[in-house]
């Protein structure tokens, strides 16, 4: 068991190192002196020299790489030009904001997806199953940013029920309750839109695995013994059908991050996605590389968690069958 988890952790570290290396290569592949992407014309010559020295550009490439690696892994990502402060502090805030959005989305899609999936499995091959399937296909085909614009124009611009963007109202009075309420109002639209494709995936997954489990011999035996249908469903089938779901968590992360890049930009949600896109337009390279790295790290950790959960869920792995 230790061997399995140890191997996964080792592999995750290899991936992180690979990502860092690739990032380093990308900086050096960019046209011109690597310093030029860090240095903007309006900065005076003294600062330029300092930055060049800090980056160690006169040293051999391998040494540069090691220095850069050391700085990067200790959280020293440099100074953001556009925010005029440490990249780590910009990212810290942005990560927290993205986390609020994604956690809500994750929980919401899980609840809706599991319910829909169960319903579709119980009613499988009926008309309601088919309509759910069509609905999911539709969710899956919607461009989130466009749906966001359409819903903003309806609920924010026309009806004025919900805010059209940002995390909080500009003029905010009242205590903590009002603040939470305000945050929820700002969350409704982005969270709903971001969760649609995930609802589609989860529902399909739950439906599929529930149908699989229901077709298994032990469930049939239970039915043959005359146990009531619902009891079977909730006592035996559901547990075994839902356990594999935990492993999807890791697989959702890249999509969740990718989706939030787009949604955050439509709703001006000051999270990682928005920070990154703004950094691109500002050519704020320290920030871009850092967000890139954090995103990769998140995905690697997500995969690691899902591998470990998988290990606990699937007894075949626990017994040491699969390396």
């Amino acid at each position, binding site marked *: 068991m230790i061997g399995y988890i140890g191997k996964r952790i080792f592999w995750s570290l290899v*991936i992180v190192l690979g990502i860092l290396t690739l990032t380093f290569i*990308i900086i050096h592949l960019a046209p011109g002196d690597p310093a030029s992407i860090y240095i903007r014309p309006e900065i005076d010559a003294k600062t330029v020299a300092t930055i060049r020295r800090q980056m160690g550009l006169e040293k051999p490439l391998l040494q540069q790489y090691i220095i850069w690696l050391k700085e990067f892994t200790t959280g020293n990502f440099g100074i953001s030009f556009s925010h005029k402060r440490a990249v780590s502090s910009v990212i810290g805030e942005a990560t927290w904001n993205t986390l609020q959005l994604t956690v809500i989305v994750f929980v919401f899609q899980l609840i809706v997806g599991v319910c829909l999936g169960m319903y579709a499995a119980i009613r499988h091959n009926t008309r309601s199953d088919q309509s759910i399937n069509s609905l999911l296909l539709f969710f899956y085909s919607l461009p989130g*940013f*466009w749906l966001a614009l359409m819903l903003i124009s309806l609920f924010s611009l026309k009806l004025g029920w919900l805010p059209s963007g940002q995390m909080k109202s500009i003029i905010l009075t009242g205590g903590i309750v009002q603040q939470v309420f305000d945050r929820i109002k700002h969350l409704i639209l982005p969270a709903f839109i971001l969760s649609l494709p995930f609802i589609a995936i989860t529902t399909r997954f739950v439906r599929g695995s529930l149908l699989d489990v229901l077709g298994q011999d032990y469930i049939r035996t239970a039915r043959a013994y005359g146990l009531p249908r619902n009891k079977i469903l909730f006592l035996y089938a559901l547990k075994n059908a839902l356990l594999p779901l935990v492993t999807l968590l890791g697989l959702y992360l890249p999509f969740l*991050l990718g989706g939030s890049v787009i949604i955050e930009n439509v709703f001006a949600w000051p999270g990682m996605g928005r920070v990154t896109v703004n950094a691109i337009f500002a050519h704020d390279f320290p920030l871009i590389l850092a967000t890139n790295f954090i995103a990769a790290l998140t995905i690697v950790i997500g995969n690691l968690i899902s591998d470990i959960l998988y290990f606990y869920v699937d007894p075949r792995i626990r017994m040491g069958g699969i390396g």
Partner: protein
Amino acid sequence: MMWAGRTKETVFFKRRFWRQFKKQKPALICLSFILLLGIATTFSAYLTGYQPDVQGNLVTERYQKPSLQHYFGTDKFGRDLFSRVLYGGRISLTIALSVVLLALSIGLMYGMIAGYYGGIVDAVMMRFLDFWLAFPAIFLIMTVVALFRPNPFILIVLLSVTSWMETARLVRAEVLSLKSREFVLAAKGLGISDMQVLLKHILPNSLNPIFVSAPLKVGEMILLESALSFLGIGVQPPMASWGSIINDGRDVLLQAWWVAAIPGLFIVLTVLSFNLIGEGLRESMGIRK
């Protein structure tokens, strides 16, 4: 001899496939829609008297409502939206189709090599694939776009190199299972060379899942490309794609809803169609999800 050769077999398979596919009514409707859209976007110049990038009179022709003159209205430069949507569709479809073609080819080759050679080659290749899969595609794309000015070519390459992994896995699994199948052993036993066995027996029998996944991938790529273009890091002006046209309408949602709404509707219909075609293919090939 009329019965010899390969053409007859393929004809049989095609016929059997069509017989099944013809039963998939929604998929057929979608296929016709896609074909129609393809023709319309390719020959858009003959369908409308307007040029997609020619500005109209900025006083009289801005933000005109959809009418018989401008089927989809006009944008803030007085440009005819109908011609722009068709033109943008051409770009969006071309990019998405090229990406899928490229990604499938990469995935096919990668998966075949890994699956066929097995052993250490396979292990190393799969580890690399895992690594690539852990890489956040959209962030990589954004970084590269920030360094180089985005153009459709870079976009196609970037989207392809970040989306071949799933196909490679599919193909590898197929090849792995096929290569120990008795008919492949039998072909080897006859003395047919490895390369011939791979091309003649393994490759054709591993194509079905790729075939099914292709339309779904096209849909995915249309969504991704339009999102990037909407954010301004995809297709750049003066070129336009559906995503960038929607961006044009972003600030005038109430005054000129059509600028954002209509290209979006096209995206929804197109992606939905590709997804339904994929479902239809899956059904008619009897592949379980």
